[in-house]
Each structure stands twice: as C-alpha cells, then as structure tokens.
C-alpha cells in the first residue's frame, strides 16, 4: 500500500506540475496579447530534450543535477505523505545547494554568475520559509503536515502575516519576475540562460522536471495554511493554491527583474516585518 502511494506521488506530481506550467505559459501569453503554446507544451519540451544529445562539460556538473532531483523528489514524498515539514524544507535546501554546485562545477562564467545569483536567492527566501515552519508549529503544535492539516481551525487564522510573507518569497522559488535572478523561463536573456547555460539534452530535461516538483512543493506550503479536519476546507485549500499561482503569474508578467541587492533587501524586510511580527503577536496568546 505504502509503495503504491510512493510511486503515485513520484509519477503524479510532475504530471500536475507540468500541467500547471503549461497553464502558466498560456496565461502568460494571453496577458501579453498572444495565443500561446498548447497546454502540453512543457511535456513536448521535455520529450524533445530527452531525444537530444547531452553535451558533457565535465563528469561532475551532470551528476549534481541528478542528485538535486533526488532530494527534491524526497522532499515531495515527505510533504505529500504528511511528514515533518522541517525535514522537508532542509531536504529541499540540500537539493538547491546541489543544483548550485552543479552550476559552479561547469566553470563557465555564465553558469558561475547564475550559481551566485541562485545562492543569493536561497539566502533571500530561506529565512521566511523557516519562519513559516516555526509559525505552523506555534499555531498547531506540530511539525507534521498530517497534524497541521487535521487541526480544527486553519493555520491562516493564526498566521496571516506569515502567509503573506510566504507568498512573497514563493516568487523566488517559482522563478518568477521580479525575482528570477538565476534563471527564468521567459525570453529574458541578459545573462544567456543563467545557471542552466551549460546544460543540454537530458540534463536540461531533468532540471525542468525538478522545477515541476518544486512548483508542487511550493503550492503544498500554501495548501497547509488552509486545510483543516473538515473535507470542504481541502477544496478551499486547492482553490487558494491556484489563486496564489495565478497571482504569481500576473506579478511575473507585470514586473521587471530587480537587482539582487533589492531582491535580498525586500525579502528580508518582508520576512522581518510579516514573519517576525506575526510570530511575536502569536506568542502573546
């Protein structure tokens, strides 16, 4: 039974993530007055990439991408099976760090600058994500997602500030403008393709699939704020996830990329104000 569940999570997560990315591309195109690609375009892209030659710069830089995928899949498994959110977040960070190492390993100037920017991004969003975990613990007295989503009151009632802060930093994790410093899916090309510049073929496909998993992980973080013991709340939680995703797409299309100083500062100010103040207030009750 458990094995079936694990396999289902591993297969279904990228399918849903890929579909969401397809919606993302259509909605982005419509916002720009274009028709946009077919819904299944992300799958076609990945299929094509697997058919292409993978250029090997050196043996290590490909290895790191696969390790990164393993950790991200592990994170997804923990989160979707109701496991420890703190463990999930640290596994996710490990995945990101391996991704950065892969960027450095190729020794290309574009990849190196992409890796540095990715590190800055990790620095920007990580404090808020940790505060989210702490806040959820404060509110529901458990780090386990299955306990958090079976509480009587949704966590959003206790943690509105933390939630807003989380939505703010999800822009980093979903690789959306204005915070898509290290790589972006759109045609912004100022540093070639950032951290993915040296990857081609199957390796690039793996990076894309990793991103699909990350989209689901990000939305799961939104989900736990709304889900409670009553079944109807899970419907609301899914709607909330979709609304947050739509909101991020609109922000993505209506803003230009900012400098890294600004990204870092604004993320930390939001974390400081939204996260900390919310937790302080919570600790008085």
């Amino acid at each position, binding site marked *: 039974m458990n094995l079936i569940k694990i396999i289902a999570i591993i297969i279904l997560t990228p399918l849903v993530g890929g579909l969401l990315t397809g919606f993302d*591309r259509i909605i982005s*195109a419509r916002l*720009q*007055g*274009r*028709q*946009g*690609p*077919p819904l299944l*375009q992300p799958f*076609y*892209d*990945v*299929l*094509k*990439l*697997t*058919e*292409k*030659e*993978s*250029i090997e710069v050196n043996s290590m830089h490909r290895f790191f991408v696969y390790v990164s995928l393993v950790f991200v899949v592990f994170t997804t498994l923990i989160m979707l099976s109701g496991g420890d959110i703190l463990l999930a977040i640290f596994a996710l960070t490990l995945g990101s760090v391996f991704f950065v190492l892969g960027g450095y390993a190729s020794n290309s100037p574009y990849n190196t600058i992409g890796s540095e920017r990715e590190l800055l991004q990790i620095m920007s969003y990580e404090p808020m994500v940790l505060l989210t975990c702490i806040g959820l613990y404060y509110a529901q007295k458990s780090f386990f997602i299955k306990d958090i989503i079976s509480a009587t009151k949704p966590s959003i009632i206790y943690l509105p500030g933390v939630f807003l802060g989380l939505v703010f930093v999800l822009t980093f994790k979903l690789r959306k403008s204005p915070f898509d410093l290290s790589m972006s899916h759109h*045609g912004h*090309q100022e540093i*070639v*393709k950032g951290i*993915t*510049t*040296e*990857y*081609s*073929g199957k390796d*690039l496909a793996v990076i894309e699939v990793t991103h699909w998993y990350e989209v689901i992980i990000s939305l799961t973080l939104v989900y736990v704020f709304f889900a409670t013991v009553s079944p109807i709340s899970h419907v609301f939680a899914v709607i909330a996830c979709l609304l947050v995703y739509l909101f991020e797409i609109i922000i993505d299309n209506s803003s230009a990329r900012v400098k890294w100083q600004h990204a870092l500062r604004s993320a930390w100010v939001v974390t400081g104000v939204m996260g900390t103040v919310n937790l302080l207030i919570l600790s008085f009750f």
Partner: protein
Amino acid sequence: MDGIKKSPWILHYDGTSCNGCDIEVLACLTPLYDVERFGIINTGNPKHADVFLITGSVNEQNIPVVKQLYEQMPEPKVVVAVGICATSGGIFAECYNVAGGVDKVIPVDVYVPGCAARPEAIIDGVVKGLEILGEKKKNVGKRK
C-alpha cells in the same frame, strides 16, 4: 511521438545583416505572428537550441563565431539561412570583407528568400526545417 517537431528552440545570430531581417525575425515573436504557438522559443544559448537561424552573410570577422555557435549546438540541429544575404551574400556579396552566404562556412538546410524575408516566410522556413530535424533525429539513432 516526435517531440523535436513540437518544440524547436531557436538561436538567432546576426551576421553581416543590415538588421532588416533581424527585425522580421523578432516580429515573429510579437502577438501578430506569435511563434510560441508552435512551441518555438527564442533562446540566447546555443546549447539549448535546435534551429540555428542566421541572418546576413558571413564575413572574415564572424566566421569563427558562426562555426563555434554551430559546434556548440547539440545534435540533431538544423541551420536556416534567413534572407538573401544569408543565402548568397545578397547586395553585399561584392564587399571586400564579405565571404558570401552562410553555406560557405556551415552546412545550411533551409534557405528563406526575401529582402527582407517576411515573417510568414521565416515561419515557413522553420517549419520546413522541422521536417529535416525529424529526419536527422532518425539518423542520429542509426549511427549509435
């Protein structure tokens, strides 16, 4: 299924073009023509590209650049020469620095005529290139 035909990513390089063709290439991305309908993306990175779109003729200065970009693209790949300059040198063919069409340096698969090539013609050229891309993919499999 043939994924490669559904998601051709393009690398656009400007040789000795007068920029007329380049503007038409970029016009393909605008809402009017919107090549993303066919999954076409304009990447700035040879390692992600499937179609090498080159405008303008080659000259002594950019021969190594064109060669290097071509070699950096992973197989299978096609080259589309856009505009009469890229095909034969066009009106610049007689210039002292111009080496001629792109096929002097790298193998070209599709020639798109016009000065400047119309966006419709460019899209047609890329779609034609996709057929060749499909053929090449089979051969890549055979060689292994």
